[in-house]
């Protein structure tokens, strides 16, 4: 009897254990890169490095090609540039910073496979004879030499990188047609073990590095009427560090959330204003989709939309901010707004609802299919069509090659970026 009881209790305890996964950004300390002799790269050097490269060594980890594109994060007067390598292998990317050292170019960063927890250090060198001379040549500001070769090593975790990787410049990035690459939840999901939590200011600042040209963020209100970003209806351990606070976010005041709640990676829940401040003043993002997760008056959301469209315009930013209409109830609230037909919005419902709201963007879910005729009609009416949420690389490829959508919302913008920029 006692044996049975103890066995039951032991099994219960054993099976109650939960495995925790993580994929921290590895230690990027590289003495040569951090030495005083290394200096920032010039804009023309960065521009000339962009392109589609074929991968020889390291193809097993990264695929046979990668699209290389720079992005920036501004912090006041300081701006940090990152070179992202969107790899052919599903869903793998490399993110580096670059510096000039003597007559060579150094790239220091890390790689990540979003389908698992694989990550590690990645270091590259472009030597004088492998193209650095052309890239650093200030008299030639536009032409990239086909002879540019980026050679480096990569490793696992914090270990010293020792596996070779080699990229050879192939062709310029595709840009013949425009595509909005919209990152879900501000840049990606917390569950994908990204370096920052979803719907945080920090992930918004990283979104461009992941390949995004725009972001979708989730707007809710606190009990005292402050719009904040949070995806789920309730506070839960998927999104926040456990602290005994549960239930709808609308139950808590902003002071309570701001003082007590931290997202999984330690960030505070941002207000909508803090998020849009980051977009306007710190990133090159050109589109924001405000996913309306609340019920009730949308006037405050509209006022903030107007405020930040004006702020972006004032500093010469071409930024589009649309209010999301995900369901009938929000639609009914939206049409209560004064001059609603003039408000930039994105409607996820039917084409009839798009007409009713005069939404600038129609955004059907991907499971409804390519809908090429409907998309063509949308274009004919002067509207854009975005599709959500495309994550499986094969589906992204199908929608990209056979569809007519102007934008793709994805948790894996790096995969969308690869298919877009590598298009011939």
């Amino acid at each position: 009897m006692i044996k049975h009881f103890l066995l039951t209790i032991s099994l219960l305890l054993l099976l109650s254990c939960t495995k925790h996964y993580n994929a921290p950004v590895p230690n990027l300390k590289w003495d040569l890169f951090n030495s005083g002799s290394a200096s920032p790269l010039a804009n023309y050097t960065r521009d000339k490095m962009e392109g589609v490269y074929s991968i020889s060594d390291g193809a097993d980890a990264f695929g046979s090609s990668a699209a290389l594109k720079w992005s920036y994060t501004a912090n006041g007067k300081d701006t940090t540039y990152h070179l992202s390598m969107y790899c052919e292998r599903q869903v793998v990317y490399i993110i580096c910073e670059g510096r000039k050292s003597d007559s060579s170019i150094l790239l220091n960063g890390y790689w990540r496979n979003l389908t698992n927890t694989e990550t590690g250090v990645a270091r590259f060198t472009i030597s004088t004879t492998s193209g650095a001379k052309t890239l650093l040549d200030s008299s030639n500001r536009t032409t990239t030499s086909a002879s540019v070769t980026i050679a480096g090593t990569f490793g696992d975790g914090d270990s010293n990188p020792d596996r070779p990787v080699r990229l050879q410049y192939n062709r310029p990035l595709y840009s013949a047609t425009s595509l909005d690459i919209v990152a879900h939840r501000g840049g990606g999901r917390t569950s994908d073990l990204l370096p920052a939590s979803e719907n945080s200011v920090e992930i918004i600042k990283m979104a461009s590095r992941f390949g995004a040209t725009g972001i979708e963020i989730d707007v809710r209100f606190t009990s005292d009427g402050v719009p904040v970003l949070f995806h789920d209806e309730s506070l839960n351990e998927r999104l926040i560090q456990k602290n005994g606070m549960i239930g709808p976010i609308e139950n808590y005041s902003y002071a309570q959330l701001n003082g007590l709640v931290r997202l999984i990676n330690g960030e505070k829940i941002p207000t909508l204003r803090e998020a849009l401040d980051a977009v306007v003043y710190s990133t090159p993002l050109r589109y924001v989709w405000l996913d309306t997760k609340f019920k009730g008056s949308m006037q405050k959301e509209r006022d903030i939309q107007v405020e930040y469209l004006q702020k972006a315009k004032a500093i010469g930013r071409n930024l589009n901010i649309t209010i999301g209409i995900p369901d009938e109830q929000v639609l009914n609230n939206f049409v209560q707004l004064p001059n609603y037909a003039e408000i930039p919005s994105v409607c996820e419902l039917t084409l009839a609802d798009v007409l009713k709201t005069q939404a600038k963007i129609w955004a059907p879910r991907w499971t409804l299919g390519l809908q090429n005729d409907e998309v063509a009609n949308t274009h004919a009416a002067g509207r854009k069509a975005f599709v959500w949420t495309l994550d499986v690389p094969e589906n992204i490829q199908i929608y990209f090659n056979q569809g007519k959508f102007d934008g793709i919302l994805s948790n894996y913008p790096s995969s969308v970026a690869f298919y877009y920029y590598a298009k011939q």
Partner: protein
Amino acid sequence: MLNNKQLFLYVLLFLTFIKASGQNEESTLPERSKKYSFILYLSGGFGYFPSNSEAPAYLKPQLSRTNPVTTARIMWKPDHRLKAGFESGYMTFYSYELTDADGKKGKVSFDAIPLLLEFSVSVKKHFNLFAGPGFYILKTNLNYVGKTESSKVNPGWMAAAAYTKPITKEISLGAEAKWLYAAETKRGSFGLQLQLTWHFFRW
């Protein structure tokens, strides 16, 4: 958090346990009563929350892991070994006093109202085992820059072992050790309660 496979395994283990205990005790138990009855169990005591991960370090928490647990249970005793019933009550999983980055003080109490379907089997004279699935109405009582109450419903279960000694024909007194588990807590609460049982209706 429990998944369906684990839950199924737990139920299977419990049923196996009941079966095994029944086989062991079949010949030693006194002749069972043929009467039906309803039994009321009133329990009060304390629960211990075996984790400090719920009170994050950045709030400089002063955690209280031992908190009161009061429960009431009604079981239907049929003419066979397995009893079935329902348990509810009020408990605090944990509470803590906090200090935010600006030095402001506050308090969080994480409470619950269990709503549990239960099964019970007598394995020795006066010694009963209880277990069952159900839900917990979890409640946050927050006192920080104003008072806030917030709640959600969460799946869970319980398991308990009780020893009670009859003091009259209808009333017994004893103690119960129990594990009240709500998925949200990941750990649950180990409780020790004094228990009064009352066969308040027989037929």
